[in-house]
């Protein structure tokens, strides 16, 4: 009965050791800055869907990844072990799983491959069929109101693989745009699934299949919010050739606009180069972005009229703050994060609809902070 | 009463016990006799559930062996079963910790009787003292039945005498004892019942008193008859 001291020593080491580890862990978490989006003026509900993300890096320890929304800051490292194992998805995917748990089952990734409006949600995924050694497109479609679901497997036909660029929906037709790879080349492919007729048609909008031509790649000009309904889409074909030194270089770029309502593709003249780079597109207007040491200029260009509209100019808060500028276009509004200011501006009349300010509990930690991504929930 | 009913035990294809049945009563010393390797130890192990049997049944006071049976019956094997690093004192402590029927007074009696030093480590003891310690740890439990496996093998003459003496004292009285041996000489005069085993079978089970009185034979005489004849 008297021989308990070893057990007591062992248990003491266990409790003190593990206990101080847990205490130290939470102390480290507490030293990270807490950010908050403070409402300054305007309609607060506009900011509720905004999710900013980035990192805090003080150079001493590994960067701490964080997201910031109207509720506050969340650091990756603060998530519990189980939460980290389960993993974090993008804010849109989290919202969709929340709203449509059954439908979203089995959806492995969401990027450019889905479409959502008030009535429908459509997801297209390229899947590999091991038994037939072919790739297919799995198309799922949900009518939000009735809860009716359609799941279709679209066969790629003569294609070996398809990289999905965009999904759109218009009048009972789901359109999937992809860069398709054939055994003799590639092309921009449009697959239209007619929900009423339960039928799929596949068109090659652009192709590059001749033996001796240069390599060509097809891509999409990025839209700010990839899943929203768009009147037009802009595609880009980039021709690449081998230089004499054996390097790959761009030989030429062409732009095309696709009219979603008419389902027609036509060439598009974009005044690139002289206005900076294309940094946004909302279905009708292309946004060029140009930076000088003092300011950032965003120039809207209407593709239908082929004319420029008035610039938006943002002063840089300080020169080093290049990572703290970010903007997105959603629902006719311009969302801008400039340094610590979050602003929502009506694109039509340039009126500020919302203004918010990001506050930090410890000003000194500001220089280690980067918020380089803006998303909508 | 310990009842062993039709117990069959196989090691692989080899049948070590071929349907053994006998009983051992409280207050009697029952001796399992046979040469080495006839399954005597296996029977004791089987009673204590230290080895599984293939068929048959073993009952102690009419009940199957469970954890509470171990407060009623003790087994003293022919090797030490305590941690070698323990002193005799620590070993007694250990027994006292787990057994409600541990009787420290009796243990002290044994210490004195066997002239053992409780501070000695078990691993340093001589063969004879190891056997005595074994006996001490087993017999200081206030149990009804005692199983002893070859208590006399391989130890010096004086220790054998001392151990044999134990059987005649109150330290054994009233208990049921099953003892195995291949040399009957030391205890022939002590045993009440003999069970002769060979090749996994019982040749003969008899009451030593009766056979002496009725046929005028000693245990050795019966053994000679059975094994030679």
């Amino acid at each position: 009965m008297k021989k308990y001291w070893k057990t007591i020593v062992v248990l003491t080491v266990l409790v003190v050791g593990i206990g101080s580890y847990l205490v130290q862990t939470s102390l480290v978490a507490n030293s990270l800055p807490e950010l908050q989006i403070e409402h300054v003026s305007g309609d607060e509900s506009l900011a509720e869907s905004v999710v900013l993300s980035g990192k805090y890096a003080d150079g001493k320890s590994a960067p701490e990844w964080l997201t910031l929304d109207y509720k506050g800051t969340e650091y990756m490292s603060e998530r519990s072990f189980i939460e980290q194992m389960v993993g974090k998805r993008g804010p849109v995917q989290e919202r969709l799983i929340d709203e449509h748990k059954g439908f979203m089952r089995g959806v492995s990734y969401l990027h450019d491959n889905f479409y959502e409006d008030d009535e429908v949600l459509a997801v297209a995924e390229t899947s590999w069929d091991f038994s037939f050694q072919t790739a297919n497109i799995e198309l799922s479609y949900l009518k939000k109101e009735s809860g009716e679901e359609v799941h279709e497997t679209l066969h790629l036909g003569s294609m070996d693989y398809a990289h999905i660029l965009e999904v759109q929906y218009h009048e009972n037709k789901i359109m999937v745009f992809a860069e398709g790879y054939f055994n003799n080349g590639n092309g921009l492919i449009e697959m239209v699934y007619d929900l009423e007729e339960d039928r799929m048609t596949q068109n090659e909008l652009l192709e590059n299949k001749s033996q001796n031509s240069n390599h060509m790649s097809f891509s999409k000009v990025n839209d700010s919010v990839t899943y929203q309904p768009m009147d037009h889409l802009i595609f880009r074909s980039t021709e690449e050739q081998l230089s004499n030194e054996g390097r790959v270089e761009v030989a030429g770029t062409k732009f095309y606009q696709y009219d979603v309502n008419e389902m027609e593709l036509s060439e598009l003249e974009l005044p690139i180069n002289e206005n900076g780079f294309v940094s946004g597109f909302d279905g009708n207007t292309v946004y060029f972005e140009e930076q000088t040491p003092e300011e950032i200029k965003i120039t809207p260009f209407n593709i239908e009229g082929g004319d420029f509209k008035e610039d938006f100019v943002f002063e840089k808060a300080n020169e080093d703050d290049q990572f703290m500028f970010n903007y997105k276009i959603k629902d006719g509004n311009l969302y801008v994060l400039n340094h610590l200011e979050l602003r929502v501006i009506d694109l039509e009349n340039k009126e500020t609809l919302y203004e918010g300010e990001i506050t930090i509990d410890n000003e000194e930690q500001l220089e280690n902070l980067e918020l380089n991504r803006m998303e909508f929930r | 009463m310990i009842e062993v009913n039709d117990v069959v035990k196989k090691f692989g294809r080899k049948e070590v016990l071929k349907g053994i049945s006998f009983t051992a009563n409280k207050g009697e010393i029952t001796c399992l006799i046979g040469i080495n390797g006839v399954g005597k130890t296996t029977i004791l192990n089987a009673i204590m559930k230290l080895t599984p049997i293939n068929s048959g049944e073993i009952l102690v006071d009419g009940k199957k062996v469970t954890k509470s049976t171990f407060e009623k019956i003790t087994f003293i094997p022919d090797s030490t079963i305590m941690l070698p690093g323990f002193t005799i004192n620590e070993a007694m402590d250990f027994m006292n910790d787990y057994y409600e029927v541990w009787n420290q007074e009796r243990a002290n009696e044994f210490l004195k009787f066997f002239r053992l030093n409780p501070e000695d480590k078990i691993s340093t003891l001589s063969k004879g003292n190891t056997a005595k310690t074994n006996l001490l740890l087993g017999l200081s439990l206030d149990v009804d039945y005692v199983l002893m496996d070859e208590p006399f093998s391989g130890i010096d003459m004086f220790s054998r005498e001392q151990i044999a003496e134990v059987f005649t004292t109150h330290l054994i009285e009233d208990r049921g004892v099953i003892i195995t041996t291949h040399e009957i000489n030391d205890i022939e005069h002590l045993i009440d019942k003999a069970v002769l085993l060979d090749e996994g079978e019982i040749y003969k089970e008899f009451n030593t008193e009766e056979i002496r009185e009725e046929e005028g034979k000693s245990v050795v005489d019966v053994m000679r008859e059975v094994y030679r004849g």
Partner: protein
Amino acid sequence: MRNFLKLTNFEFNRISKLLFSLMGFVLLIQLIGVFFEVWMYNNRIDSLMTENQMTEAQALNQVGELSFAMVMYSMFFLGPIFISVGAMLFYIFLIWYREWFGKNTFIYRLLMLPTERINIFFSKLVTIVVATLTLVGFQFLALLIENSIFNALVSDPFLSEMNVVNLISQDPLISMIFPHSLDGILLVYGFGAVIVGVLFTAILLERSYRIKGIAAAILYAIVVSALLASPFAVNELLLNGYMYPGEILFTFAVMALLVLMVSIVISRKLLNDKIRV
């Protein structure tokens, strides 16, 4: 219950010698690592200053500051951990087999105790898990000691002060030993306990049926692996990713608990009816 606690205390006493030696060994070697890394660093700075005629600032600029990471990611630090892990793995087997082997077969005594035999299983399982956690706890305390000695040894301009918790979380290997929250510790070491339980069952199968038992033990290990892998395999191969990660994790946890229960049931049966001394 009282007998279980007594048995566990008894097992702690038996493992304590190993445990205390491992702790001493870990601390000793890791401290040598601290002194060695500091010495190496000082040597480099000194040789740059004397042989290359550099100023202190220039030498510092060339070599860079010294951080505790140099110690923590060195073999002086990881070596003793590996050895401790190896020792504990070995002890999983030793904790059973030593009862049978040698001149003194203690298994007789253990099996004849007037208590449920499964308590022997539980006390050994708890001993392994608690001893492991004790080593983990000790390692953290040792880290704190080593880090403060390190900070005292390295003079100011050369020192890059780091928090050990950050250093732990940055190394995939070390952060496996130190999951960063309580639920992680419970999950990781809980799963460890399940695996130890499976190994115990395998050992008892061998102890009950010897050669044939080894085959049964291997078979049991395969079945357990299949059960534990099933949530992932079924989701990938049959359900096309139907389950969300949280649901897979939950199913896996249920499977692990099931495996533990099956191990206990089998071990109980083996200890009661099949075990051989």
